[in-house]
Every structure is written in C-alpha cells, then in structure tokens.
C-alpha cells in the first residue's frame, strides 16, 4: 500500500485542493475530518468505514494505483454537498474509520455512532457489512463496495446499495450483447468466490434475455506470467489452447480480482470479442465516460484526488451525494427525515449517466444505468432500447420487485 504520506499532510493537501476548487467558505466542512468536534445544529455527519485490503498487483503498466479508493469519492461528495449546503445553511463532514485485518466491524461502527454519525458509507465486503448493519439498526448504511446479491436479499431496512449488484452488471451486459445479436456465449470463470457469483449472475442474465451459454470453463492456470521476459510466449500458447472450444459469438469472462482477464483479448482461438469483467466491461462507473456531464465530475475528481475515478469511488460519491440530496430536499438535518426521504418516492439523484437515480423500495438497491465500457472509450449504456418495463426501464437491470424476497 502506498501510504507514505502522513495523514495530516494528506489532509492538508486535500483541504488546499478543495479550497481552491470551491472557495474558502467550505473549509469548515473539511476541518473535522477524523476528529470529534462539536457539530453545528445543521451539520450532517457521515461516517466512512473501510477495511484494509491487500495491495493489488497491476495487470498492465498503464494501470494507475487507486490511492484511497472510495474515500476520495466520498470526499468529492462532501464538497459537492457543501456547495449546495452553504446556500441553505447545511454543512457536511465525513468521519473516516479504517479497519485493520481482524478488527471487529461492530466495534468500529459503535465508535462512529459515538461521534454522532447516523449515516455510514461502507467500503466493506459483504460479511463484515452484514455484521455491522445487523448490530446497529438505528444507523443507515450505504454500501459502496459489495456487489453481492445475497446481501440485497437480506431485506435490511437500514441498508442501501449505491454500488450495482452483480445481477445488474450481468443484465446490463446481457442486454447489450443481445442487442448486438451475440447470443452464444463462452463463459470463463475464475477461481475467486466473487467469480463464481458473477458467473451465476451471467447465467441468470442469459436466461432472462434469451442468450445461451454454449460452453463454460473454469480458469485453472497459475497467473502472473505476463510480466516475465517471454511471458507473452507462454500466454500465446496457453490461451489459444484453453479457448479452443465449440463456436460462440462472445467470450464472457468472470474475473473480479483481475487475475487473468486482461490476457484473453487478442489471444483467443477464434476471433471473438471478450466481455464481462474485462475488455467490454459492464460497470457502474468508468473513467471513459464523458457523456451526460461526466466530464465535469471527472475533472472535479481529478483535481481533488490526482487520479481517475473508479467504480468504487463513484459508488462512495453517489452515497454521500444521496445523503446530501435528501438533506437538501427535505430541508432538514434530522437523520430520520433524511433517511425517510432517501427511501421515499420523491428522491432523485443526478449521477452523470443520463437518467435520474433512486433507490428501489424493495431491496434498497440504487437503480441506475450500467455502462458498457471499452478500454479507451464508452461503448454503450444499458438499459438498451427495446427492453421495456411498466414502471422504470432501469428496473430491467437486476432483481425486480416481483423477483425479490423483500416486500416493502
């Protein structure tokens, strides 16, 4: 992990950037970062809880290290909220807690609650999030990391999800592939637990939208040969052999941990496109998006964080913005009123993806377009034309009201 800078230096840099971005009036909103301070009556305190993660090895030398992934998005959300808040006397602060390996999420949440936090943005895996949300029913959690559909099916009243579920990602991809008439899929599944769940979502999507998984294989190689001298020679032999299967229109890869997906495109036995977690990627956010005003969001983020926005940054930003939007619209700093507005029918958030975003009342999932991102440019965005829904076309993505075990 690149955490060389001391935290105080980092915060000072952040404050300077924010000040230059939005004017000194906002300084007050950033000062209490990580420290308890008497809050003004109209200050809304938002917790940010994340867990230590093993550093990821970049697959490509072009990959950017996402320093403070998620947290940077939350900070931009605070700055955006403050810009509206200063006109109507509301201010927002984010209070960060980082859990080390083995730390108890319940204790971390109790600490945040003791600082007056009622809204907690989480960058946690599904299991610690389940424990945290279960132990603190009066807090509202906004999940910015875990894509698990099982977590949504727990029907928790105090849990919203701004990160798309795997079912939403797979449905968004499936709609695009079916629109392209690429209906015969070769599914390649990695070894991670997330990969297995992603593959499940892909199978479900194929059934929903009339595609067929003609062949499925588990990826069982040891990875990491690409960087070695002559690494490409090995891959050039292994991947054609692995992908020499019955004919298909597209290879759909499930590799959430980024272990091998980048090696596939350009090396498959048949000349077929690669989609899924790699190459043609279904995602909640990608830095290639420049439509619907996304350029402005990207440039604000780059000024603040010094890098590009990832899907986790976006989900954390969307979570903070949601709380801000609800506070502004309900003209209240009362957490109960804000929470009620968030889940109510009037809530609408502008998320730079062309359609208003809101929360599904049955499972708390944010309905939102799914981007189909190429390596350098945006390829498409789902829902695709022609996939109709009697309420919202966005609800053709993921688990719809009738399919969910949750009853609002």
């Amino acid at each position, binding site marked *: 992990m690149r955490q060389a800078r001391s935290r105080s230096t980092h915060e000072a840099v952040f404050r300077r950037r924010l000040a230059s971005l*939005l004017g000194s009036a906002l300084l007050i909103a950033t000062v209490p970062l990580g420290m308890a301070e008497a809050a003004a009556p109209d200050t809304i305190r938002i917790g940010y809880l994340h867990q230590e993660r093993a550093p990821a090895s970049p697959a490509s030398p072009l990959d950017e290290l996402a320093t403070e992934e998620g947290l940077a998005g939350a900070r931009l959300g605070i700055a955006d909220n403050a*810009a*509206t808040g200063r*006109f109507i006397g509301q201010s927002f602060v984010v209070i960060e807690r980082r859990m080390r390996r083995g730390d108890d999420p319940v204790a971390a949440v109790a600490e945040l609650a003791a600082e007056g936090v009622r809204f907690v943005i989480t960058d946690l895996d599904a299991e610690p999030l389940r424990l945290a949300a279960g132990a603190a029913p009066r807090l509202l959690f906004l999940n910015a990391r875990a894509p698990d559909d099982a977590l949504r099916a727990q029907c928790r009243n105090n849990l919203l999800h701004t990160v798309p579920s795997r079912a939403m990602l797979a449905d968004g991809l499936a709609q695009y592939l079916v629109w392209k008439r690429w209906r015969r899929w070769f599914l390649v599944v990695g070894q991670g637990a997330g990969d297995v769940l992603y593959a499940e979502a892909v199978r479900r999507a194929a059934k929903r939208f009339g595609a067929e998984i003609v062949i499925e294989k588990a990826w069982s190689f040891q990875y990491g040969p690409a960087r070695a001298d002559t690494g490409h020679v090995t891959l050039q032999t292994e991947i054609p052999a692995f992908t020499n299967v019955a004919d298909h229109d597209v290879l759909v890869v499930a590799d959430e941990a980024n272990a091998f997906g980048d090696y596939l495109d350009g090396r498959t036995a048949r000349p077929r496109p690669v989609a899924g977690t790699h190459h043609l990627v279904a995602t909640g956010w990608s830095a290639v998006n420049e439509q619907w*005003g996304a350029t*402005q969001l990207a440039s604000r983020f780059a000024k603040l964080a010094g890098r590009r926005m990832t899907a986790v940054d976006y989900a954390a930003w969307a979570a903070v913005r949601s709380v801000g939007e609800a506070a502004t619209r309900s003209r209240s700093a009362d957490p109960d009123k804000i929470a009620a507005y968030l889940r109510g029918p009037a809530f*609408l958030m*502008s998320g730079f993806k062309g*359609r*208003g975003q809101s929360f599904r009342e049955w499972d708390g999932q944010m309905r939102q377009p799914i981007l189909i991102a190429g390596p350098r440019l945006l390829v498409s965005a789902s829902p695709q034309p022609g996939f109709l829904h009697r309420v919202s076309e966005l609800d053709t993505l993921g688990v719809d009201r009738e399919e969910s075990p949750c009853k609002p």
Partner: protein
Amino acid sequence: MQAVTPLVFALALLAAPAAAETVYVSNEQDNTISAIDGETLSVTATIPVGRRPRGIALSPDKRRLFVAVGDDNRIDVVDLASRKVVDALPSGEDPELFVVHPDGKRLFVANENDSLVSVLEIESKKVIGEIQVGVEPEGMAVSPDGQLVVCTSETTSMAHFVDASTYEVVDNVLVDTRPRAAAFTPDGKQVWVSSELRGTVSVIGVQSRAIDAIVEFAIPGVPRELVQAVGIAHGHDGRAYVALGPANRVAEVDNKSLKILRYYLVGQRVWHIALSADEKRLYAANGGSGDVTVIDLERREPVKSIAVGRSPWGVVTAP
C-alpha cells in the same frame, strides 16, 4: 420517429413562406455552425468555428454571432456578412451557455468547470467580474430590464439570482434536479427553469424569488425517465415552448394557465429551440438525429426536418 420526414416534406411545400431570416445552429461534434435559409429551409453555409461549439447568441446589432467553444475555452465571434470567425473573446474555462446583456457591452458566461459566472466586456475583451455560484453552472438568462442575471447550477440544483451591476448573488432558489436552461417571461415577472432529470419546469416569481408553480410533462407511451426538459422559448402571445430531450418532443405550454396545449414530435434528443421573428415557426436542434425540425405554429405541426452537422445543440434566428 424518423418516418415523419417524408410526410412532412410534402407539407413544407404548402407552408406559408416565412420572413427572410436565417437560422444558425451549433454542431457540437462537428465544430461548425450551420446557416439555414428561412425561406428555402435549406442549409446555405457551414461555418468552421472552435472546438465543441454549444451556446450561441446574436450581438445586439444582429451582425455578429457569439459562439461558446468549450474545448477552446473562448467565445468565437462570427461575422454574419462574411460568415467567418473574425474575433475571439476570452471566456474563462469551458464556456457552455451565456447571455448577451441588453446594454450590448457585456456577456455573462457560465464556466462549467469552475463554478463561476464570468462577466466579459466585449469591447476590451476583458473579464471584468467573476461570480461564485453552485457546482456546474449551465443555464443563463437576463431580465428584460437588464437588472438581473439568472444562472442555474446543474449539480447544486439551484437558480442563482445575480445583480447585473454589483455582480453579487442576491438569491438562490432550489429547483428540481439538474437544471439546464433558464428563461425570463417577456414581461420579466417570472423565470422558467427546466430540470433535465425530473423532467419539469420550475416557474419562479422574480419578485418573490419563490417557486410559483411546477410544470410537469407526461407523454403517453414515453417512459417518464426519458422526459428531460432542456431548452425553453417564450413567445409574446402567451405561449411557451419546452424541449424535452430524449422524449423527442417539444411541448407547447399556455404561459398563464401552465396547461400543456400539445406536444410536437421532433428529431432525437432535442436540445435547444428558437422562435422565428414573427413567432410563426419554431426551430428545434435535435442532437441525436443531427437535424433541425421546423414546426409551423399556425398549422400546429412539424413541417420539415433539415439535416445539419453532427450533434446540433444551440439554435438562434437572425434577420
């Protein structure tokens, strides 16, 4: 929806000839301005300008066209007689929409990336004032008496009222999500602000600085999410027009009762609209289909679509 074209072409021949006017359209992805002859309804010139032209407006003497070219961080000045760019004004970063003050001396420019409105003095080519507003300023309007400028901010979802002489923000009105355009009514008593994501228009009283009413649009067969209000044009006859983006419609609204009188089917993803000088026609710039729809307001139907450049965005009419 494109099937409308051949049908309406025949009707165009029947339409009353309009006054000799020219319609100018900015083509966001082509870096050009298309000039359409109001009589023949055909493109008579394509004028190269800077990169990503969006907001356009006429100079008070109507001899020049100002074009905000966002990717070049300036405003190009097109001489309409020679149809060439003859000058450029520094606008601050990423100008999108702007208004020409009735005094003819100043432009008020929304700088989307900097949360600023810049006041640009045309003659000296200098920025003589900067006004801090909300995040992503977009729509700009000036009151008929020139005293007030209104700017909308897309992420902050507010209409900011700015005193046009002191450059101070005098009021902020929270409006519906992602406001795009702002337009004063001809009597100067109200400002209409369109909300792209809520698909509404907030009607704000200029005296009260409160929302008097919210106009909602419901089009049978069009999903609510695709009804996205953008450009606004006010007539002097009590009617107003609102472009509805990916709903591919323009709404005609009674300006007093705020009832929707009818919807006109236009091209795909309509951005901005402009009335002819005699207010018998409305021109709609359709970003998705790369054309301009001509609506005959007396016959109450679209009569022609004219292919222009890629992603037409802004539109104005000139003598």
